[in-house]
């Protein structure tokens, strides 16, 4: 029982880290319909901003806040400078995916050329460890879980109760109708990119803190599991992304504890396939309308 409890606890920590990024990824996709595979690159770039600030003497949590802002700005800039011109030219969904992959490759390889193919770590001690039987939680992990909970609640509340949140949801359901109803789509889309980037920045730093060390390509390497969490929960649903992250995190940790550590991914993605067979739209998604890329 102690093993199970600790595995579930570890799964929750993993889920919290994945959830921040998964919410960011799915929020932006739901509003813009751009399947942004450069999201991992934004995580990495922001992570490096935090790294440079952290090594300049800044506390890691302050550096994380700066990474969040820089992530938002980078995400916004990518959309404005690169994606929007393609969308204006009427590039289809398929073409946009290619563009986002190209951006990811350019950013990752450009960054690797600049910083070198080596590993980086933050100067941030894990802090005091809290033990509950076999389950150990460090102060750093506790803070990350707290940040994840806070951010996901903030996003959910904003989407549910604020004007701009409602506008985002309107865009997610039907962009043309939202525009006809007077929603300032361009501003709302820009805000979605910014918020998504903020979450990528926080998620990147949280992930890199958790895995202890990172390279110029680490964000992109973890994108697949972030997308998996978003898809499992229902692409376009922040609440679903959290639930998806919980399933992925807990299944992998319980799988590693009871089954075979080598096959934890097999188990997690097996569950993903099984859930999608029963519920192809994911656990929470309500988006099911014919949509094009929002402009």
């Amino acid at each position, binding site marked *: 029982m102690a093993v199970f409890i600790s595995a579930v606890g570890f799964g929750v920590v993993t889920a919290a880290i994945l959830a921040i990024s998964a919410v960011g990824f799915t929020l932006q996709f739901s509003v813009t319909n751009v*399947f942004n595979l450069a999201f991992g690159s934004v995580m990495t770039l922001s992570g490096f901003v935090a790294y440079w600030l952290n090594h300049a003497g800044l506390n890691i949590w302050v550096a994380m806040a700066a990474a969040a802002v820089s992530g938002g700005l980078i995400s916004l800039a990518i959309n404005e400078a690169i994606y929007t011109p393609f969308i204006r030219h009427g590039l289809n969904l398929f073409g946009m*995916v290619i563009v986002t992959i190209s951006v990811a490759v350019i950013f990752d390889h450009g960054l690797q050329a600049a910083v070198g193919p080596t590993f980086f770590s933050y100067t941030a001690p*894990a802090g005091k460890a809290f033990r509950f039987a076999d389950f*150990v939680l460090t102060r750093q992990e506790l803070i990350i879980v707290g940040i994840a909970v806070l951010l996901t609640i903030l996003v959910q509340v904003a989407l549910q109760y604020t004007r701009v949140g409602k506008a985002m949801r309107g865009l997610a359901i039907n962009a043309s109708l939202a525009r006809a109803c007077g929603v300032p789509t361009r501003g709302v889309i820009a805000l979605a990119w910014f918020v998504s980037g903020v979450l990528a920045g926080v998620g990147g730093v949280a992930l890199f803190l958790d895995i202890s060390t990172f390279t110029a390509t680490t964000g992109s390497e973890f994108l697949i599991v972030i997308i998996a969490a978003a898809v499992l929960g229902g692409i376009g649903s922040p609440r679903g992304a959290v639930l998806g992250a919980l399933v992925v995190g807990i299944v*992998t*940790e*319980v799988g590693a504890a009871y089954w075979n550590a080598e096959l934890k991914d097999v188990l997690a993605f097996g569950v993903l396939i099984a859930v999608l067979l029963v519920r192809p739209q994911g656990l929470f998604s309500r*988006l099911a309308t014919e*949509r094009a890329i929002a402009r």
Partner: protein
Amino acid sequence: MTGKWKSFGIAVAVVGALGIAACGSSSSSSSSGPKGNLEFAVFHAFSGPNAAYGPEAAAGCYPAIVEINAAGGILGHKVHCTPVDSKGEPADAVPAANRMIASSSSLVGVIGGGSNEATAVVPLFQQAHIPIFSTTGQSSFDHNTASYFWRILSPDSAQGSAMAAAAKKLGITRAATMFGNDIAAQGSAPSAIAGVKRLGLALPASQTLAVGQSSYRSEATAMSNAKPQAIITEADPQTSATYFSELSQVGQVPKLITDPVSQEPNWRKAMGGAIGTTLLNKQDYAVVAYSPATLPAYKVFTSELMASAKHVPNPSQWNADLYSVADYDSAIIMALAMDAAHSDAPGVYNRYVTKVTAPSSGATIVHTYAAGKAALAHGKHIQYVGAVGPVHFNQWHNAGNAFAIERYVNGNWKVYSLITAAEINAAAGF
């Protein structure tokens, strides 16, 4: 299918298609050198997760060509190193190798082909009659029959046995194992586990990790609960750093019995960042092929490495890296074989590799390219004793090494203890 799901389906298809396309479109930086020049290809990963392997191999090639060119080149030809990115993946390595073979008329030898791609590319170089000096540890090459394949360092199976023998030598009675599930790490895992059992040590935990995960907390907890005195381990830097960071949070990091990977700057940087350099240096016992830095050829390697700063950034970081050292020797051996054969044709000089390395009565022992070239010019037989020590190739073109346990002390690797052949044989069951 609704629009949302249709677009998602398209996106997934595109990701897959692009992945396949990327595999087939990897670019190599292969190019022919100036007319009359000869070319050694450094065929390794220069991008992707194993992007450090390429610079590591280049840190062996460039010092060698400094030495060779300073001695007048090979048969009057200057020689240069050409980095070619294999990306550490067979799907990328094969087209890169094919392009390199097809496009470079001055290519005379290949340094590289790591464990991840060697099986895929060695047949290509064999077919093209181009010698390849590989640092792969894969056991599938233990009885290699490809005449153009050469391996200076011991195979992973010997490495694993040496790691088990090291545990015994260190007085360990409870030794756990933790290996990544990638090809490179799995090479030494079976012989290490078998060695632990054969030597009568308790094996309280034996883990194979899926590499590149965001968490290994459950695995680290299981390892901590097993309370081993030492962990025999090989995994990539990212996996090692995440795992041992989490192990240090749930319990104690015991002695680590590692392999040459732990001497790579990237591995130490990642692990140092994860658990702290003090703890890492205190607990790490690296089991590596014995190659004392006092060997004459090693001193030359060090000197030429420092002279290669133009092509090798921060060259001192590679001075204790056994793979760089072995790659240096590989280039020197190929150059001497060409001199001995009086030909730079790969199909000709390949047969002379053993003639410049095998011990024989009356052979002049040389430690540098210049000395070897001079002796050959005087009609003497030579035996090159390189920076890794004597290189005795067997009938399968494998050369073995003695092993040592080394520790990182005050910024340098120091030999802590030698592991004898008898100790390794006991672990290997010979």
